[in-house]
């Protein structure tokens, strides 16, 4: 069975972005976690779209099992390493810019808001889906006021827009690269 093409990942990422905008209400704290969760999905699916685009262009193929993982930073790093300087030089520089140190850190922080099982004895970390423990060790939930703030929503919306747009452009450029 063939893997899904890049444009379907991008299409789903765009749908997630529209859903995030619909769910967010500035005067309702309980919607912040929902919007950030959707922006996390935009970033994750955009990076997976780029991986699929590189596969479609016969440049690099990531193992299928990694598409079902949520470690977006690792996928971004692997994409960067799989691009050789020769022939794909312009694509490489664009990917290097997209996944520079700052944006990889932003992706890592956003990805950390997906729920993860903590190590034994460690507190449950703040995330956008499940109840977690605050700094005092008390339980709270993502939709409870002050779990997330509007600045974080804006910050990760900007990240999602940037990653989606850049991935979209690079993917559009890949078929043209093959014809040169």
């Amino acid at each position, binding site marked *: 069975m063939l893997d899904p093409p890049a444009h379907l990942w991008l299409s789903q990422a765009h749908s997630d972005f529209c859903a995030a905008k619909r769910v967010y209400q500035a005067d309702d704290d309980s919607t912040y976690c929902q919007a950030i969760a959707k922006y996390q999905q935009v970033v994750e699916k955009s990076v997976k779209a780029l991986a699929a685009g590189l596969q479609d262009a*016969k*440049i690099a193929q990531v193992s299928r099992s990694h598409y079902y993982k949520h470690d977006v930073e690792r996928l971004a790093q692997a994409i*960067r*390493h799989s691009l050789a300087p020769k*022939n794909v030089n312009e694509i490489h520089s664009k990917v290097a810019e997209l996944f520079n140190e700052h944006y990889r850190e932003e992706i890592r922080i956003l990805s950390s808001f997906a729920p993860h099982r903590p190590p034994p004895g460690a507190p449950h970390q703040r995330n956008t889906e499940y109840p977690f423990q605050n700094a005092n060790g008390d339980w709270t939930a993502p939709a409870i006021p002050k779990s997330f703030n509007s600045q974080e929503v804006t910050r990760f919306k900007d990240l999602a827009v940037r990653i989606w747009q850049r991935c979209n452009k690079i993917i559009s450029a890949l078929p043209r690269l093959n014809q040169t």
Partner: protein
Amino acid sequence: MIHTILATDLHVPDGVRRLVKHHLRFKDEPLLMAIVFKPRRAKSDIVLFEVIENFGAGAVDADQELFEVSLGTNSGVELDPGQRLRLVLTNPDEFRQAVRDGWSGIQDLTKAIDRGDFKVLHCPRNQAGLRELINA
């Protein structure tokens, strides 16, 4: 500069050496060790195994799976005719745990080392611990 510290008969295509040289320029993701080897079963494949500081934020994969990318015909890496390059990426903690716990993804490497069918392309002196680990 690429340090070849252990030499075997394995032929390493120039394209692979150039790719390692390229990765050495990533100052924000320092390359700690690069080993090339031939897996026993897929004889037309060549595997470039790299240990990178901060890869995957230094985390150990919960599924005990090493991250692998196969480079395609348009990758720009010059290989021998019919050859396929597989790139396996990990970080120091994950590498140590994979070796210690015998992850399936590491066994191709350890067997190639047993056969002497490998070449270390990069391993600075201060990474001797990693080198000793694969030779253990």
